[in-house]
């Protein structure tokens, strides 16, 4: 059973209350290092930082409103080979869900890893945030405003800015983690909630880091449902709009005409699990004569070839596990709606296998399993 605690915030400094809790995790040796976003010296962005010295936790940004990298990738690098000491990682909901998916593909090892999730109001594009800072709309004042909005689930953003599209349609604002920091439904300048999962509950209680009580925010579940409902509505509208545009493959190619084949969506994707991408192997290196034969057959072919296959095959690999972080969107130099594409296709395929990516590390991804009695597709339509 998860254990709940309420943490009082002194002098309206919510971040310090959380940092204080994280410090005690380090000082009382619950974990030996913490991975957490920290503000860059330039003040206009954040990076994940691996911290060993509790003092260095001063100045970290637990509410970093950008996602420069998918930290599931960072956690993968960190944990997959010989992580001998306990490390906690402060991640956003989609990063946790991606880490869970990667654990299923044996690319994250959970043995010495403790995931700390934090309620997520949404994130801004990295470049947008840098501009906000220049205009004096970022930093502490933005954090204060966001935390205030999370109490009732009514967020007001600086004018002229919006969250990343993927965040606007994300139905997972709260996390399932070893430690969850709860903000929705809380007056965060006075009190926040912390929930500790089974992996750490006993130790944190024994070391006296938190005192547990069943008291929580009475409005929390209502606020969360409201936020999820709004985002689901946005999601369905975007899916509908996308479906209206992509009526067939020609229409898809028309919409994706500005794809420059940079493969950025693939590089940014936390789920793309192949160690060596097939599109970068000899499979897609052909004889000059082969290109001529293809050109001969159709009269002309686009060069470089295989744009459609690239997107379709990438999808067939990752779409069952797509957790909708939208980093593909952020990485696309042509601003193509790749996240909407992957999510709208993903929804259908995930439903086919009643699979919710990132839900439970014990589940097996659909591409790695089967049932004997399923999918009556033998020479028939789905």
């Amino acid at each position: 059973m998860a254990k709940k605690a309420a943490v009082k915030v002194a002098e309206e400094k919510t971040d310090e209350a959380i940092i204080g809790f994280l410090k005690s995790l380090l000082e009382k040796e619950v974990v030996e290092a913490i991975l957490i976003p920290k503000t860059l010296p330039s003040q206009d962005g954040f990076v994940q930082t691996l911290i060993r010295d509790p003092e260095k936790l001063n100045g970290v940004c637990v509410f970093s409103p950008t996602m420069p990298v998918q930290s599931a990738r960072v956690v993968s690098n960190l944990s997959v080979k010989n992580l001998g000491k306990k490390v906690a990682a402060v991640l956003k909901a989609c990063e946790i869900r991606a880490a869970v998916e990667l654990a299923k593909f044996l690319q994250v090892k959970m043995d010495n890893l403790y995931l700390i999730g934090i309620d997520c109001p949404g994130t801004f594009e990295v470049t947008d945030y840098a501009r906000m800072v220049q205009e004096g709309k970022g930093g502490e004042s933005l954090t204060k405003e966001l935390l205030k909005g999370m109490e009732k689930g009514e967020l007001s953003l600086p004018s002229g800015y919006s969250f990343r599209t993927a965040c606007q349609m994300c139905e997972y604002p709260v996390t399932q983690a070893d430690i969850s920091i709860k903000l929705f439904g809380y007056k965060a300048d006075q009190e926040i909630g912390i929930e500790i999962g089974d992996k750490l509950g006993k130790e944190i209680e024994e070391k006296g880091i938190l005192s547990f009580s069943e008291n929580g925010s009475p409005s929390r579940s209502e606020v969360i449902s409201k936020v999820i409902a709004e985002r689901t509505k946005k999601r369905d509208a975007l899916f509908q709009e996308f479906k209206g545009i992509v009526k067939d493959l020609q229409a898809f190619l028309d919409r994706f005409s500005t794809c420059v084949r940079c493969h950025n969506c693939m590089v940014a994707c936390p789920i793309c699990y192949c160690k060596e991408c097939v599109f970068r192997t000899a499979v897609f290196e052909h004889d000059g004569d082969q290109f001529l034969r293809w050109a001969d057959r159709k009269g002309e072919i686009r060069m470089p070839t295989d744009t459609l296959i690239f997107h379709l095959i990438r999808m067939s690999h990752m779409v069952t596990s797509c957790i909708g972080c939208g980093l593909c969107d952020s990485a696309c130099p042509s601003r193509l709606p790749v996240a909407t594409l992957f999510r709208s296709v993903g929804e259908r395929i995930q439903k086919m296998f009643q699979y919710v990516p990132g839900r439970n590390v014990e589940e097996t991804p659909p591409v790695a399993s089967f049932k004997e009695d399923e999918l009556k597709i033998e020479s028939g339509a789905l």
Partner: protein
Amino acid sequence: MADFEPRIVAFLCHWCTYTGADLAGTTRQQYPPNIRIIHLMCSGAVDSIYVLKALIDGADGVLIGGCHPGDCHYQTGNYKARRRVAILKGILEQMGFTEHRIWLKWISASEGKLFADTVTKMVDDLKKMGPNPMKQLWNA
């Protein structure tokens, strides 16, 4: 469209459907010559890339033939092929390609007639459907 002859690329597993195709030949079953067979050890070895590459570069239909469920020489290859085909078809349908041009069929080594009938039926269906629009996309 009367003179349209569909081109089918078939990926057949060594242990069942390929042997079934062999039987169709040795028992003199008649079936249309529109099919180009690619011999694989298992239907589980069919990568979605092969299927798409065939459809984009000139095939009107793709046939994937494997052992009946439970009969796979490698225990589970055909079940994996079935999931892969289902995922690929689901993706294509979601992107507006709803035509039934990818066939998955379980044909055992003893079912030469079933193989001949399958090819006959597939050619018939594809003739009615007309040429594959995917193979005409020069900018794919």
